[in-house]
């Protein structure tokens, strides 16, 4: 089976985001960028399915600016076979991303698309579900376990109440949650090898997708800051505070 894994380049999760003074967005100049952590989990899952002999090819795709090719190279270093870079310097909203991915899926005909449940920049949590809708296929979101069984995939999902398992007819779309796996670190030889793996560059127009924004960002502000309060010296003082709060 062939697996398609979309990946996004985002602000590294260890970096504290800073809102630009003009309120137009978050400052991304000269800060560390990385593969979206959930997408890294998606790449890992696909590569494991290949190592188990279930998948035959793992294709990664990223929609974004020139530097997204670095994100693709890091996915190739983890073990993906081939990459597609859909170059767009302007921001592409989830719906347009899903439409581009539909175009890619149309050409690649993957049996499984595995992607992160959300990107940690816009926190939208939409693309997987939208792609599944556009290609008319089932979706297994927030996956903590993925098992391919013949022409179906069993997906265990992290839901508010606990866990839920659904069976989806292939082709299907799966979005990853944190506990699906622990992504590997790419070894130096694999990082070198990734440099010569095939990477093709496309444009949204190649898939006939209009990426004009449907949402206008009017402003971006810092949230109200919480001030640090008091430190109490001991448990007794803490009990007093709890009593004042009416909980003890």
């Amino acid at each position: 089976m062939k697996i398609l894994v979309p990946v996004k380049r985002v602000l590294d999760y260890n970096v504290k985001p800073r809102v630009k003074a003009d309120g137009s967005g978050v400052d991304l100049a000269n800060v560390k960028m990385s593969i979206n952590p959930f997408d890294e989990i998606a790449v890992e899952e696909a590569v494991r399915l290949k190592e188990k002999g279930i998948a035959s090819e793992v294709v990664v795709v990223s929609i974004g600016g020139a530097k997204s090719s670095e994100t693709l190279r890091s996915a190739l270093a983890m073990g993906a076979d081939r990459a597609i870079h859909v170059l767009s310097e302007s921001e592409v909203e989830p719906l347009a991303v899903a439409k581009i991915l539909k175009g890619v899926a149309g050409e690649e005909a993957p049996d499984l698309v595995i992607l992160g449940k959300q990107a940690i920049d816009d926190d939208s949590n939409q693309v997987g579900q939208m792609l599944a809708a556009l290609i008319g296929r089932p979706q297994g979101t927030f996956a903590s376990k993925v098992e391919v069984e013949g022409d179906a995939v069993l997906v265990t999902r992290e839901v508010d109440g606990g866990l839920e398992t659904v069976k989806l007819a292939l082709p299907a779309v799966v979005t990853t949650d944190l506990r699906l796996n622990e992504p590997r670190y790419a070894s130096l030889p694999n990082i070198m090898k990734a440099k010569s793996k095939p990477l093709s560059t496309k444009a949204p127009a190649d898939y006939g997708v209009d990426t004009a924004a449907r949402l206008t960002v009017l402003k971006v502000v810092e949230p109200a800051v919480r001030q640090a309060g008091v430190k109490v010296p001991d448990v007794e003082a803490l009990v007093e505070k709890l009593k004042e709060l009416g909980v003890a």
Partner: protein
Amino acid sequence: MKVLVWAEHEQGALKDATLSAVTAAAGLGAVDVLVAGDSAGSVGAQAAQIAGVEKVLVAGDAAYAHGLPENVAPLVVALMAGYDAFVAPATTTGKNIAPRVAALLDVAQISEILSVEGPKTFTRPIYAGNAIATVESSDAKLVITVRGTAFAKAAREGGSAAVETVAGTGEAGLSSFVGAEIAQSERPELTSAKVIVSGGRALKDSETFAATILPLADKLKAAVGASRAAVDAGYVSNDHQVGQTGKIVAPEVYIAVGISGAIQHLAGMKDSKTIIAINKDEDAPIFQIADIGLVADLYSAVPDLVARV
């Protein structure tokens, strides 16, 4: 504007998340509620009582029993012919269904809104809540998910909505429900609890977590939460995780025990009314936002606290 709200329900009971979604929807226009499920009738009757709801649509069909988005989205899309906006709570069910609906309607989704600023203008958190964006939609129809902690709950009583049965769209034949492991607990639910006691990586293992955190939660009649590190390490199940990618909570009192205060954790609890932190590291970032901090070893402080409250 006519708004259709997705009713979240479980085992015949309407969930509180629905009530916050109704409040958000009422900021846009006239509110109808859709109850889809296999035994949707009794939930429909509960939804009809919610203050401010005009009409309840009941779609009772086995295909909707587990909220499978492949079956539910076509139902919502068909109904949306008569509505201007679809509003769902930002629960795992709402997050699963709403984007599928949005794509089928060819509109953008506005995720986890915090406020309604105008008929097409909303605020929403980005970057784990480290920034708040105000966005305006240019689409003909709106699809929105609602962050429960940002809106008051509509009253469960006082309404007298008309209840209408709608025909189902049946099975899509793409997916089926296999099973679930749903945690049963006598404790209050995380997202609606007044007091939460959360434990982090410092709790060592599931036995230690249970022996340390649960007695305190019992004494304070609190719900139990956890950091991602505690869930990843298997101290407690995933439904306890609070944070950017877990549950968003805003209780009266949140007590973080042995949690460092990573931005991803803060994203899920920093709107709590009072935050209390117990941590042995006086430089732990959690103290920068805690109202009340106790620098102490939790293994002496927590049992001592349990004995005194």
